[in-house]
């Protein structure tokens, strides 16, 4: 099932399949390890559409809700 990163449940794992943003956002995210084909684990999200925290490899990354909406992941049930 494909859904935006912002809608993942805490603890859920998924593989990034699409980043609906420009080149700038893509390369910024890539530099932090969020790239198409990579697995991300949702760690937590702040209340009221706050930042979303994900784990990629050994790194934890917090990204704004808007950005998280642009990242589409494939989640295995």
């Amino acid at each position, binding site marked *: 099932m494909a859904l935006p990163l912002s809608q993942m449940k805490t603890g859920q794992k998924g593989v990034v399949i699409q980043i609906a943003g420009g080149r700038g956002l893509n390369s910024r995210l890539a*530099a932090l390890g969020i790239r198409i084909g990579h697995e991300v684990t949702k760690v*937590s999200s*702040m*209340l009221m559409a706050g930042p979303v925290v994900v784990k990629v*490899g050994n*790194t*934890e990354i*917090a990204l704004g809700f808007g*950005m998280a909406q642009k990242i589409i992941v494939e989640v295995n049930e």
Partner: protein
Amino acid sequence: MKTCEQCKSDTCKHIKWVKTETEDAPDSGEKHRGKHKRRVLLMGNPNVGKSVVFSRLTGVNVIASNYPGTTVEYTQGFLKVGDDITEVIDVPGTYSLEPACQAEEVALKMLKEVEPSGKNDTSEAGDLIINVVDATNLERNLHLTLDLLERNLPMVVALNMWDETKHRGIEIDVVKLEEYLGVPVIPTVALTGQGIKELVSKLPEASSPTIPVRNHDLKWTDIGRMTVDVQNITHRHHTIRDRVEEWSMKPWSGLLFAAVIIFLSFELIRFIGEGLIGYLFEPLFEDIYLPILMKLSGLLGSSGFLHDILIGKLIDGKIDFVQSFGLLSTGLFVPLGMVLPYIFSFYLILGFLEDWGYLPRLAVLVDTIMHRLGLHGYAILPMILGLGCNVPGAMATRVLESRRERFIAATLMSIAVPCMAQIAVIIGLVGQRGGIYVAQVFLTLFLLWIVLGLVLRRVIKGISPELLVEIPPYHIPYWSALLKKLWIRLSGFLREAIPLVLIGVLLVNILYTLKIIDFLARLAGPFLTTLWGVPDSVISALLIGFLRKDVAVGMLEPLGLTTKQLVISCTVLTVYFPCIATFAVLIRELGVKDMFKSALLMILTAIIVGFLLNMIL
């Protein structure tokens, strides 16, 4: 002789970011190189322990400077091997060589300045790069490594946090990695110093292999292959640290954790600051400096123009460090005797929180509310620091990227965030009339903070960038790096704040002597007293508040104010203007024009809030 680009002086210690080949006379070129020798650039992703490596490599002589035309700070120091002195530059952390923020732009610029210009032989200049890599995040870190290799500069790789790899079940084949990269790779644990000696001894072996310039996707594919080949990951168990990390990042437990951390930080800052004042600074000033100053006062004839400028007015025949208002008395006492101890304890605790890795977490926790106010998560820093002392709070506005955010943060902090000393006096004074009135003051300020933020967010054009930040694992800080950072910040404060406070005191003095302040007080007095419903005498407290807000609040005590007048006076005193030291720092951080606008906002807000309180209460 060429002068430094940064400070326009011939003899400064700044790096000359002027390319040597532009020197016209051959001998001056040699002198230039002879003085600065070769440079080592420490480069790497943020949070890889670069500053700790820097601290291990360099001695005590470290300097922090702003990169020309930016608010980005970098540090430089010197590495001594035998008689050979090499300049080491701690370049701001960057994820790639395609800048995404100002700090990354600076990193790229610094790299470009040591880059061979083609005709210039690199081996002669001897500039090289130490690429600090986080061994626990090999894949991500290698992207920058490959970017750097493309630049054809001699390089060595420090595979830092080597000890962490074991805890995390990561095995890295260093020899194989060396083969892939074509440069020396040295495992290091900067925290304990392990591998640093070897790193230094390998510097002469730094090499610049020719590698093909690849596009993004190809580079990532290569990196993927490389990491699979050199790295072996085994499963590992959760540690206590993992749990604390996880727990402090969940919305509710995270906020609770944040509240505890902030509370403890404040208690510690106050404890250390008060201790320093009570046992060190006050005795120094009262017992040693005061008698000397009294003698000077006598020599100058205890009054007169020069005496008033230098020593100030005598209070009951004695110098009062707070109220005398002379350059040598109040001008030195305020920054050194009252602010410095708090700045010291602040920066100590702040440095600890930074190196521990807590600040990004705090920024994430409060990001939502900060965005509503036109700011972003990191703006919590100036606010919290401001609660201790507005001076470091004002300095901390520089962590914010855009001019708009810096303006909003600085204005909000100056208006609605009282400093620790002031909070104490307000609680002491208003508290006598009942806790509810103390609440009235602070609730007003809090509402003001929110409302003003909401308004400024709409009025000032621009957007607050979304948060995108790496959350580093918790680390035990390395004390030497911590102290080095503390020293850099303190000396920066002394260099910059003292002249500014002295100028401020001089200015107020002159205005006072020329009776301009009296004139202003008489002009604004009737208007304000009607509007706020407070007696004339409160206006003079406002004038003192420019120097020390807590003292000004204290001055309200003998005035016999009603409770309502007291609440209004305390609130207005907080809002109307920052103290002189904060004001001076803000001018530096915002520029004269923005500071003028900000100050106008403060005065306007004070007038309105005072009036509203007068109506409502």
